[in-house]
């Protein structure tokens, strides 16, 4: 097994606005199984950050425990990282975000880390609308402990050993919609053309952005009868439309016929462009998104793409009215303004 990636790169690699190539966004060589969907998602995160020209030191990667949570080691090697306790990534992310609101928070979790041990944390971070990207690498099984069914495995899905899962799955995207998440998307690790723009949109979204990514476990859950195998997902995928992110400075040109596309302007002036939307889909209507997801499930199909977005959203800092400056930049003078200010406050309370 080769653990060292050769140092040579293609001499004509494209460069982003910072003059960086994808090399500056790479991590160490993956030790996951060959062909793991998670590696493709890592590749998509890397590509999205490269295309957005984010300086790597402006990103903090956070994860819990599991195959999925190992992946932050394999991308963005020049960024901050925190590999936390099983299921507790949201609390660590919340704490970090509270202390330094200037970083971009990229949470990576798995179906076990989110839908089982971390369920409590997951629902509360949605409720609080923490400004972060939350990606679930969802393979429907516990790959790290040899492939037992996880809480997202579909009822009737067959394991590699042949046993059929009798339990109903937790639909993470549906749950996120139900709990009021302001950005909900679903995708497939094997479809980078869809996933990369979704991650870019999620990073640009000023609140909690959730992406549930079906990611086949090539070792334990890629067998006939599994509903999370490469073949099954490809056969049952249904896209809501094509998403693209247009950076702030680019001029929007009407490059598609009116009526087939929608533009969503974000607070920083970037646009999310939704093209070729499926008939009767409204990404700004939560009820519509929930129905569409449900209907697709009833047809045994997996609805992918941007399911729902709320552009006028208020993140946790806004809700609790915290200071605009990151806490870690506040010095003693800011935090202890002195007796005159105290006297003023006391006067107000009289």
């Amino acid at each position: 097994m080769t653990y060292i990636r050769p140092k040579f790169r293609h001499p004509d690699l494209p460069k982003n606005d910072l003059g960086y190539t994808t090399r500056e966004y790479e991590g160490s060589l993956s030790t996951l199984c060959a062909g793991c969907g998670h590696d493709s998602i890592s590749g998509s995160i890397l590509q999205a950050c490269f295309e957005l020209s984010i300086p790597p030191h402006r990103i903090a990667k956070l994860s819990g425990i599991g195959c999925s949570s190992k992946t932050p080691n394999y991308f963005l090697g020049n960024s901050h990282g925190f590999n936390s306790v099983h299921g507790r990534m949201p609390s660590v992310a919340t704490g970090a975000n509270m202390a330094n609101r200037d970083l971009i928070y990229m949470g990576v979790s798995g179906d076990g880390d989110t839908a089982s041990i971390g369920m409590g944390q997951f629902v509360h971070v949605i409720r609080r609308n923490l400004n972060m990207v939350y990606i679930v690498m969802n393979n429907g099984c516990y790959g790290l402990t040899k492939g037992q069914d996880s809480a997202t495995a579909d009822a009737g899905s067959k394991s590699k050993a042949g046993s059929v899962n009798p339990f109903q799955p937790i639909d993470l995207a549906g749950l996120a919609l139900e709990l009021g998440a302001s950005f909900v998307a679903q995708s497939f690790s094997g479809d980078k053309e869809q996933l990369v723009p979704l991650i870019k949109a999620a990073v640009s979204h000023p609140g909690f952005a959730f992406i549930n990514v079906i990611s086949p476990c090539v070792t334990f859950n890629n067998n006939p009868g599994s509903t999370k195998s490469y073949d099954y997902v490809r056969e049952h995928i249904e896209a809501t439309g094509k998403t693209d992110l247009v950076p702030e400075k680019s001029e929007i040109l009407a490059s598609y016929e009116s009526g087939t596309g929608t533009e969503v302007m974000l607070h920083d002036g970037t646009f999310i462009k939704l093209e070729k939307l499926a008939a009767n889909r409204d990404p700004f209507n939560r009820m519509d998104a929930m129905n569409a997801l449900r209907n697709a499930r009833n047809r045994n199909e997996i609805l992918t793409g941007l399911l729902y977005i709320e552009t006028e959203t208020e993140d946790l800092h806004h809700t609790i009215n915290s200071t605009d400056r990151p806490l870690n930049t506040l010095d003693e003078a800011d935090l202890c303004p002195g007796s005159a200010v105290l006297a003023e406050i006391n006067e107000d309370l009289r």
Partner: protein
Amino acid sequence: MKPTDTKNPEYFHKVVDCQYACPAHTPVPEYIRLISAGKYTEAYMINWESNVFPGVLGRTCDRPCEPACRRGRIEEEPVAICRLKRVAADNKDDVRAFMPGVPSEMNGKRIALIGGGPASLTVARDLAPLGYEIHLYDEHAAGGGMMRSQIPSFRLPDDVLNEEVGYILDMGIHTHFNTYVSSMNEILEKGYDAVFVGTGAPRGRDLVLPGREEAGKNVHVGIEWLASVAFEHTHKIGKKVIVLGGGNTAMDCCRTSRRLGGEEVKVVVRSPFAEMKASPWEIEDAMHEDIPILENHVPKTYVIENGKLVGMTFEKVKAVYDEHGKRTLVPSGEPEVFIEADDVLVAVGQQNSFPWIEKDTGVDFDQWGMPLVDALTHQSTNQRVFFGGDAAFGPKNVITAVAHGHQAAISIDLHCSGEALTARPAPFTNLVSKKMGIHEWSYDNDVVNDQRFIVPQAEKKAALSDRKLEVELGFDIQTAIKEAHRCLNCDVQTVFEKDKCIECDACVDICPTACITFTLNGEEDDLRTRLKAPALNITQDLYVSDTLPTQRVMVKDEDVCLHCGLCAERCPTSAWDMQQYLYKVTKAG
């Protein structure tokens, strides 16, 4: 694009850049791997089978392989292929047991070889083991041709040359040395079944300028002078020497002059320095021996005082290029330059010359005096007469002459068997997996970061005082093995099996040099722009698969593939496999 036909023997051959660029198509990565495994004899024999003179070429080859080396496209310098070949030659055991034997029963056919250089010797090497009776004619006292007469001993020691010429002459070749063939008709009358002409480009051009006649014996034609030094007729030269010309012969002339008493030796070239024809390493070696190279000087006159040559005058010029890049040298307007000289060596080119081939031999010549020779079969307009080496298509180099020799031998064999010369044998190819385990390969797939190692040289003072002391010392074993590890093993091919691919993208993500892309098919020009990194090097092919279930195709740009095997290691279904491709040019018989 249509799916790539990897069954075409040339597809994977082209990926092995060094081997593809080599006129004799020596399997370079294969012998480099053997060197790093310490198997010098095996490495030597692979070379010998293909290029006949590994020891000679390991010192003197023009190395068309090195500019082609993929390593030169991912970092600064290619692998030192040529000097690794020398390592195999220097460290091999006795190889006589591996040489092909000569049958005790000859086949009754007689072949004449005119000229004893690399082309003729290659024909002899290929045909003698098949039972041909070979007669080799050369005007000099020993075989080797220009390898002996024009390459100085400090670059190619006599014993190295003698050994490799000897391997061939020992195959029962009938040698006729010190025999200048002055009539083709006489040879043809002797009833040989075929005649091979490998007489090289034996005539050096003189430079006739005012004063040339008076300068007389102090002006020498470069290759003739080198031959006269090699055969020990000339032992010294004046203290001040001008060498005219910018090719490798000029470099050999100036360095030889330094060893025969030349103290102030100058090379003077008409063109700008950057456009000199000599190999960069030969120019470097000359300059290392304190030989200045003066560019943009056009020779005007030989200056004679009291009936004796005292120097030359030159006009200074500058190069001007028109919109097609065509160069003209225009006077710069600066005053004429006078350079002192006791002797002048003229190395401004050499020509073919066939005064000995009569008009009625059936061998036709073109308007420039070159024989009409078929580029593939090397047959002339007389079906019995074949040409190879510099004699066939003008001055090239040793490795090209060897390649010609192999092809001419095939033609002669077919001719003598009464078969069509166009019915040439297909190359030998073999493609075999290097897989040992899930993540293990039976080749060293780690890509090392070392820069090219430098070959040590003999101390300058000692080298300049002894014409026969070899300047380059060759790599020591440790350095050789390190240099060998720089080879990327381009012959271990990335072979893609479309039906096994599940399109998980693992190969795309892992490839360090962004070679692999899965995308919708298109025309080549369009496809080249849509890859993960643009495929700008159009001399390198795209490897395209048939359409996959998602309607995309796999496209691999061969340009900067490191052959590290990571794509195959990360492939869950072995749709990618690393397979060693061996390609050998089939020889006569």
